[in-house]
């Protein structure tokens, strides 16, 4: 019993001195991180520990205000993403995991720390040790919310500061099939379909029309008849004309140098005119007695 008491007397100074030792701090942080699946809940003291000037680790700190009375809607919205990223970081192998920490500090636990609005994410690079950035900048950088509050981009950006990229798995999330999400894939699909259909593809399908007639003729005689090849040619002409129109309408106005813009306008106008006359001549072949023609 007495012996115990003496022992404690001995140990006490050590234990008091312990915080000074970065390894000890590190271990503590690791524990804290593990305790709160990957995200350390900070208060002012632990915040100082985490961001201590001679840290060998990097850290991403979320300053937020989850308390209802703070009425911080964005905080509420962003918090899950941050938690999610932190969780997914906790799944990486230990040595990487322990060299970067995720932490969140609630306003009510660390008023003094807050300087700007919330939520905000500071990324502290390591100040010492192997992971100290080459340029030596150890000042914290701030996550840019223009990437949105979603977890995906957050993980993506933070990965620049972690030893290995954060293995963030979106939950059951649409952003997976980004291709399908991108409307332009759909746009292309739609336009192609309608082009093919309006150039008589179904006719060739149903009638089983040949790809092209014998002796190299590729235009089927007769108004209500056509070869497979015609479908392609006509579809392409339509497509070209349509895109020429789009160019004139959508692209040209954004050309900021007058000369280049002028060039474009003339180019596309001429293209339209020529292709149109080609189309007409083609039609006149199919439908004799069609009275109108442009160039040819």
């Amino acid at each position: 019993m007495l012996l115990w008491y003496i022992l404690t007397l001995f140990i006490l100074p050590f234990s008091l001195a312990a915080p000074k030792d970065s390894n000890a701090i590190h271990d503590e942080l690791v524990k804290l991180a593990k305790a709160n699946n990957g995200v350390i809940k900070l208060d002012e003291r632990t915040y100082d520990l985490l961001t201590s000037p001679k840290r060998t680790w990097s850290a991403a700190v979320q300053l937020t205000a989850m308390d209802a009375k703070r009425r911080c809607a964005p905080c509420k919205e962003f918090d899950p993403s941050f938690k999610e990223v932190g969780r997914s970081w906790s799944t990486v192998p230990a040595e990487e995991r322990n060299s970067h920490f995720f932490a969140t500090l609630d306003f009510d636990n660390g008023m003094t720390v807050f300087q700007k609005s919330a939520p905000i994410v500071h990324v502290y690079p390591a100040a010492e040790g192997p992971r100290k950035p080459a340029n030596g900048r150890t000042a914290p950088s701030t996550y840019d919310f223009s990437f949105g509050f979603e977890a995906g981009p957050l993980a993506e950006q933070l990965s620049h500061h972690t030893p290995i990229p954060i293995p963030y798995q979106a939950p059951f999330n649409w952003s997976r099939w980004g291709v399908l999400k991108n409307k332009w894939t759909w746009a292309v699909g739609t336009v192609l379909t309608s082009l093919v259909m309006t150039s008589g593809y179904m006719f060739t399908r149903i009638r089983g029309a040949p790809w092209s007639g014998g002796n190299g003729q590729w235009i089927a005689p007769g108004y209500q008849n056509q070869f497979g090849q015609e479908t392609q040619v006509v579809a392409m002409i339509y497509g070209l004309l349509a895109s020429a129109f789009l160019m004139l309408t959508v692209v040209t106005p954004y050309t900021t140098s007058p000369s280049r813009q002028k060039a474009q306008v003339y180019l596309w106008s001429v293209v339209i005119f020529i292709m149109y006359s080609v189309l007409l001549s083609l039609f006149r072949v199919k439908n004799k007695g069609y009275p109108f023609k442009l160039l040819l």
Partner: protein
Amino acid sequence: MATTTAYQVPANLSPTAIANTSSLLRIVALALISAAAIASRLFAVINFESIIHEFDPWFNYRATKVLASEGFYAFWNWFDPTAWYPLGRVVGGTIYPGLMATSGVIFYALKAINLPVDIRNICVLLAPGFSALTAWATYMFTKEMKDESAGLLAAAFIGIVPGYISRSVAGSYDNEAIAIFLLMFTFYAWIKALKTGSAFFGTVAALFYFYMVAAWGGYAFITNMIPLHALALILMGRYSGRLYVGYSSWYAVGTLASMQVPFVGFQPVRTSEHMAALGVFGLLQIIAFAELVRSHVSSKQFRALLFASVIGLGLLGTAGIVGMTYKGWIAPWTGRFYSLWDTGYAKKYIPIIASVSEHQPTAWPSFFMDLQFLIFLFPAGVIMCFRQLRDEHVFVIIYAIVASYFAGVMVRLMLTLTPVVCVAAAIAFSTLLDTYLNPEQPEEETPSAAVPSTAAPSETSSAKKGKKAAPAPATLAELVSNATGPESTKRKTGIFGLDTRLLVILNALGMLVFFVWHCTWVTSSAYSSPSVVLASANPDGSQHIIDDFREAYYWLRQNTPEDAVVMSWWDYGYQIAGMADRPTLVDNNTWNNTHIATVGKAMSSTEEVAYPILRKHDVDYVLIIFGGLIGYSGDDINKFLWMVRIAQGVWPDEIQEPNYFTRTGEYKIDDQASQTMKDSLMYKMSYYRFAELFGGQQAVDRVRGQQVPKTGPTLDYLDEAFTSENWIVRIFQVKKEDLLGRDLKSANSFDQGKKKKRSKPSSRRRAIL
């Protein structure tokens, strides 16, 4: 304003003045467009006369006359004993009465204000009148998509585009005449309901949907388009209260209303065509509930989960529907509808549908003929819709895909493609005009920021992020600023100089003018002939009218007993009923395949076989169309093979198609024609005494371009009753049994003093029946 302008525009105008002027101009423009739409459809009346066209319109006209003369209830319970003799037809329950009701109402209304317009003229002019309304509806619809100017363009396009005129010239008194207006207006109301989320517009859509259901079988198109749109929006995560209100009110009211049409009845809950609507309705309810829950919790995962479960439930529902279909509680797709997907289906199983010319697939020239330059503006317009992908644009996009597919499969469905093409083209075209008419010039930029010049694609790809513009690193900031596009950097984009503007504008105007020429030419030359009356040119170039059909029909009407039954191929059923006013065996409402096959059999078998059939059906006269003399290609010999096929479908062992070809497999009517062909009733009637007309010379069939045998066929059981001036219509009377009980063949040969020919006893016995 810092920006320079390419040309001077009057600056000091009060906004009210501008607003008033523009609205006035709009009204004037719409009025002119309507006038043009109506006028361009009157070629038929001017070149020929105010007459009902084609085939089906004659039935509609007849039905309308019943409605006008005997009132609505009589019409509703009208049983027509003269059609499908001897079966008769319950007309009231087997038609879409919308068309007749419409003209009936107009007729009575005019009568009420002492304008006793002849019902025929109302019927003839109904289609042009409604085309004006269609133009207006299209204007409203496109206005929702872009703005008034686009709307006016669209209205002008649809007003004169041949693809629509082809089914709505004066005199083509068919369901399509009013259907397209209803289609466009229903869609407009739907879009409106979707945008404002007002139950009122939802109900308006429902009411017009009901009108559509009552007017045209094609209403199934709406029934599936709107749910498709709703579904797409949901999948795009664009569910909203507006969608819920709009759709629910449309579906609930619309479906209940549509079930009031006798011909539709319980189909909306029974047949697959309507299941999509029902399914989406259910799905919406689920989602609405989910959204309710979601609004109270805030965890992202939970939401995702909920969403997944919603989708799951939706799929479950669809699965359920499919299951019920297999169980047979829900009728599967009807043949006509199904043949749109499995394009080989019709030819195999429903030759009657396949035999109709307007059910053939469309070759590209028809597309160009019907839509001209709209057809390639159309994709551009679709892209425009994608650019600012608002809910209503999704509709246009879906419509574009679906309609272009359908139009490709069936010529007749070109009609449903036309409106969306006009709308899309109008959007593209007016955007072009907006860009190049806008007098503002952007100021030139320092080359440093020349980056965004290629920003068109990148802009849109990052459009989403752009919504939350926030302070961000420089490189980012630029992207974002591009992304926000027209709004933030309006002054940066635009056209420099006047020449560029002039060039493009002139080019565009040229296209428009050309389009007008094209439409006028197509309409006047191709789409304005009432197929009842044929036009040819005299040597001196003046118009010569070939009026054989009416000549023969009128002869029937005036000089045969009221109850004389006329047999003809079904194409002419409605015309005979309408013009000759005589009972017919089959007509264009092809509901009874067997009956049609019977006629086909009679036509394609020998006299001996055909005679008992004719007698059993009390046929007094047989009417056929024969173009051999003046080269009218749409005659019965050319349709003959379909008769054979359809007959073969029912009596495979008695009628075989191959027998009607020559050994070399050709379809001929000259000496080499197969014996079966030569013995067939149709052949005999067509060429009866035809060769004699040429005196000594070699008789030539001008349609087939083949030489007709010198010794023409002889008829024992029939008797030529009437032949029209150009031999197009030939009417034969069926002889009664011989008084002495001989079979008519021997009786005939006896009368001609010949020695009794030995003919197959079997057939003789059958003949005496």
